[in-house]
């Protein structure tokens, strides 16, 4: 390939610049977090004596232990059920091809672009009438429904590409439908499922609107919703707020760095499909 030296260097320079712009807010947050609590530090100035204890203070002020537990419980409530329901539905629509599948699929697809704000008001009254306001179920149950369009869409796209011969040969070997589903198709769907699991985890963990509307107690919210409350409470103490924000985004960051390749693939595929 004809590659000019100059082009390579402009490319590198641009990439470094872009990374710098991406990282600056994080660095600013970090540096600010080290200043004495209650002060108004200037931009990116490194403090004379870094106050690492701000992180401890923020950990206690935000009740991080409880928050982690709460977010984890919500994720455990949302992700496995969503995966199961979406796999069942995607299998039926994409592979069993039952009558009326197009209508069902179109109904799901219509929900793909739905902004959550559009239905948050009736959702509030509905959750209230179910007696679930201020419980974690108030976030879990609606989220499963709200994630269904994308999840079904995603799983259908997988099953539609599975060769029917696979089903044929399993049937020849005497597998019934349930065995066919669990023994043959679910194992083969694992790559699609794990990408979907990552996306659903991320969207649940970062869900903000549902958390602040449906749950008053920050300790029963998602991380994101709790951070909103933390900002309301400590918004004037900038270094403490910065430390708290860093702590609250640390778990996602850690999980992202561990599974980064899967994440990147999932996010790219996710937006391509969505």
């Amino acid at each position, binding site marked *: 390939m004809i*590659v000019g030296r100059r*082009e*390579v260097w402009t*490319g*590198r320079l641009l*990439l470094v610049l872009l*990374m710098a712009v991406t990282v600056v*807010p994080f660095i*600013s*947050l970090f540096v600010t977090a080290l200043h004495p609590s209650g002060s*108004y530090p200037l*931009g990116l100035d490194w403090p004379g004596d870094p106050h690492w204890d701000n992180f401890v203070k923020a950990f206690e002020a935000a009740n991080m232990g409880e928050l982690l537990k709460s977010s984890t419980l919500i994720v455990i409530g949302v992700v496995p059920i969503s995966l199961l*329901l979406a796999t*069942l*539905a995607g299998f*039926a*629509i994409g592979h*069993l*091809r*039952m*009558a*009326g*599948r197009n209508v069902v*699929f179109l109904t*799901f697809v219509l929900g793909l*672009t739905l*902004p*959550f*704000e*559009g*239905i*948050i*008001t*009736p959702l*509030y009254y509905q959750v209230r009438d179910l007696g679930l306001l201020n419980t974690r179920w108030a976030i879990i*149950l*609606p989220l499963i429904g*709200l994630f*269904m369009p994308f999840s079904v869409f995603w799983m*259908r*796209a997988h099953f539609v590409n599975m060769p*029917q011969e696979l*089903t*044929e040969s399993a049937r020849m070997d005497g597998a019934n439908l349930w065995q066919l589903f669990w023994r043959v198709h679910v194992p083969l769907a694992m790559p699609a499922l794990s990408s979907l699991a990552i996306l659903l985890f991320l969207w649940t*963990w970062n869900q*903000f*609107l549902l958390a602040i509307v449906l749950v008053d107690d920050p300790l029963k919210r998602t991380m*994101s919703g709790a951070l*909103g409350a933390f*900002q309301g409470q400590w918004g004037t103490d900038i270094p403490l707020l910065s430390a708290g924000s860093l702590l*609250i*985004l640390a778990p996602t*960051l850690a999980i992202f760095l561990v599974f980064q390749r899967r994440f*990147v*693939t999932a996010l*790219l*595929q996710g*937006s391509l*499909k*969505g």
Partner: protein
Amino acid sequence: MARPTPDTAADPSKGRHGPAAVAKTRSPARAAGLRTPSWVGWLFVAPALAFYVVFVLRPIVLTVQYSLYRWDGIGPSTWVGLANYGKVFTDPDLFDSILNAVKLILFFSVIPVLLGLAIASTIRRIATSRLALVARTVLFLPQVIPLVAAGIAWTWVLSSTGVVNQVLSHLGLGGVTRAWLGDFSTALPAVGVIGAWVLLGLCTLLLLAGMSRIDPALYEAARLDGAGSMREFLSITVPILRQEIGVCVTVTVIAALASFDIVYISTQGGPGNSTMVPGLEIYYLAFSERQVGMASALAVVLMVLVLICALPIQWLTKDKNS
């Protein structure tokens, strides 16, 4: 990266022809379909559909219903017909929120997509280098962290003592420094910058992934024919990336119209109403001002607006060849 099959997947209307074509070429498909009675398939779909109906479709219908009433959320409601919609389009505060969302498209979509295209085509040649691999991870950070955290970090970066002003002062531009999010004339663009930051990495990487599909021989041929890099870009890159560009535009336009988290955290719609967006206005109307009917009318307008924007983009950028 395994490429998904958005051409069949993204377009539901094709599904209608797809299965028939498959059945024609593969007769076992029909057999399998026939052997499993239809009601069994519906049994598989039922649980997912139930959740969807209860927590999405029913609320959508209710939103439309609420929008036709005046209701404070507690007492009795009064039928007002389309009056709430009239108010949405005539009340300057409500209508401005819609205009603001439309203006945000410039920052959330136009800038990330154009800049993403420019950056991706510049770094295309070093897309497999180690630096690019590191960049892949770094550029994804804004997508992974909660938007709330992005909002808090940027509120501080854009504050009167923040990094932006620090840099400007160093450049001798101390005169233009200000509290970017607190100034009537700059608050909306400042919110837009936060959105652009969140979405630029995603767009760049999506477009870059698309470019890796393009045969380098195409570029070489163009070079030999004397094409400049601008010509290359317009005649090869953009047409082939049609679909990726479509995806970027769709995702980012929806993010702009339905923005909530960033605005809630960074400006709460202020100063004045200068950064109010429909999502936030719905939240205030429904849960602070107890105007459920008005909030619902705005919600319906928002949902329709998103559909109106998303559908034509999908249609325009669909790959006609496949």
